[in-house]
């Protein structure tokens, strides 16, 4: 496994940062100043859902309680996503500093990192890092001399459940329960971990906050597109010469990404991981931005040799396994979609059946309880639509070569 720092460059997240700087700066500001900076930056949650981060912090800050929690969602389970792994290995200071800033802003004294079980090999170095922070009074009591501000962070290991990336399922898991999503409302900002107001932020969201606090929201806003401010980390893998984590401004075109990573023979790009959408080459001029293709940052590239039906089958097998089984649309819907794929594979389908399955997929998007079932039909719908010639029109007449 890789170790040590790779030389990375980027305008925001991978720009220079001095450990503890965000904490120092934040403690010299009022809570309202911090919330204003965050709101002005336009930062949205980087896990994929894109909820405005400032609103989340404001709601948790406004909640009245003797105890609040700030949770870092490091349950990065979306196939094709590995940016949080890189942040936690190479830039833990960005993530943990922002947690302390968050604790100060929302009035929490306890932070929890929910680390996916697959990343257990990171836990020792992360705990060592936290210990260093305690030694330097970046964690603990009266942090950096700020009277009455106490905050500490502990790491909690997940046990291999994709659905726990959903924030209420994550909270259930922290409470020692099965990771099943909760009904909302109430939202975690009011009734979260152990019934207390809880703010759950993605690893990358936190890493971005550290830079915004130090350099200001105006600086941050100069990057990105009109409606999507700042930059985003992209986990790029598949058929390309240089897979890895890249920091790109919002508004970057798919074709520019392909150029950057050396994907010369691409016929398909899956944006947003298994639960994202799959584009064909006619759509490569589309942009990565909230106003066009919003994404948690996974980009998987497929070259001309790949069988897209097989790709789709891999995705749907994943969802059938990872559906928690709590709600019917997701539990049964994913199984039915997978059956449909097998029917196509064996050439034992009618278009009437396929159209019914597409209707089912639309129903799942509306009727599923959490993000898993709401997004798992995405690859089914987009691959069958964008690659229909490859999948359905192979045989009989025409110019298939």
């Amino acid at each position, binding site marked *: 496994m890789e170790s040590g720092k790779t030389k990375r460059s980027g305008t925001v997240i991978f720009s220079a940062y001095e450990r503890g700087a965000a904490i120092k700066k934040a403690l010299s500001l009022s809570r309202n100043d911090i919330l204003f900076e965050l709101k002005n930056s336009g930062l949205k949650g980087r896990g994929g859902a894109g909820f405005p981060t400032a609103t989340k912090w404001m709601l948790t800050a406004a909640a009245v309680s003797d105890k609040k929690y700030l949770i870092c969602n490091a349950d990065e389970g979306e196939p094709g996503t590995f940016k949080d792994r890189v942040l936690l290995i190479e830039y833990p200071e960005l993530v943990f500093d922002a947690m302390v800033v968050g604790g100060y802003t929302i009035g929490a004294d306890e932070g929890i990192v929910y680390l996916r079980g697959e990343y257990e090999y990171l836990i020792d170095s992360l705990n060592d890092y936290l210990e260093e922070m305690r030694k330097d009074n970046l964690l603990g009591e009266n942090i950096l001399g700020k009277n009455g501000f106490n905050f500490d962070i502990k790491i909690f290991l997940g*046990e291999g459940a994709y659905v726990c990336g959903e924030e209420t399922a994550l909270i259930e898991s922290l409470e020692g329960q099965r990771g099943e999503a909760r009904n909302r409302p109430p939202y975690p900002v009011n009734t979260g971990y152990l019934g207390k107001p809880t703010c759950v932020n993605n690893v990358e969201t936190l890493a971005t906050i550290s830079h915004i606090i130090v350099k200001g929201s105006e600086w941050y806003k100069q990057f990105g597109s009109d409606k999507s401010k700042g930059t985003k980390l992209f986990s790029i*893998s598949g058929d390309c010469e240089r897979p890895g984590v890249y920091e790109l401004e919002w508004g970057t075109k798919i074709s520019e990404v392909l150029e950057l990573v050396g994907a010369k023979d691409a016929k398909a790009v899956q944006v947003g991981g298994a639960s994202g959408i799959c584009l064909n080459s006619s759509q490569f001029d589309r942009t990565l931005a909230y106003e066009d293709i919003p994404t948690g940052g996974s980009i998987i590239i497929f070259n001309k040799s790949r069988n897209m039906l097989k790709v789709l089958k891999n995705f749907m097998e994943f969802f059938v396994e990872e559906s928690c089984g709590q709600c019917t649309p997701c539990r049964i819907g994913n199984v039915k979609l997978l059956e449909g794929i097998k029917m196509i594979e064996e050439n034992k389908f009618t278009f009437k059946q396929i159209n019914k399955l597409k209707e089912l997929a639309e129903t799942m998007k509306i009727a599923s309880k959490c993000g898993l079932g709401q997004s798992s039909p995405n690859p089914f719908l987009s691959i069958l639509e964008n690659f229909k010639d490859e999948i359905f029109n192979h045989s009989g007449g025409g110019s298939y070569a």
Partner: protein
Amino acid sequence: MFVEEKTGLIEEIDKLVAKYGNTRSSLLPILHEIQKKYRYISDFAQQEIAKRLKIHPVEVYSVISFYSFLNSEPKGRNLVRICKSIVCDMKGKDAIVKALERELGIKIGETTPDKKITLEYLNCMGLCDHAPAMAINDRVYTDLTPEKAVELVNNIK
């Protein structure tokens, strides 16, 4: 289970309850450590944990059955897990699995007769930029070839 095994397990559980506390929130950390040490969580362990957290044993079983890293049935002493998510699949996971199956004489999902190794699939490990990847117990290995994977597995003591 022999009496001394039971005593050892009880001591271990008591130690973990003292470390994490006897609240429901301690359940996953306690199960994690028992799983890690014994490679499964026996009925007896489930009952003893439930007693200390003041919950019904079936609550413990319910949680174990939900999470893919927790098992209520014994497995091999070593867990070899190969990532089967899309990128590892594209980068040659099948060849690795076939080589390991051949070498160990078992199919994926099975345990060697001497209980030394269990071979399993795993969903995305977040190592897609270094695919194909696998985990042997708590360590991960990347950029594998069938040859390299077999060598790693043969080196397991």
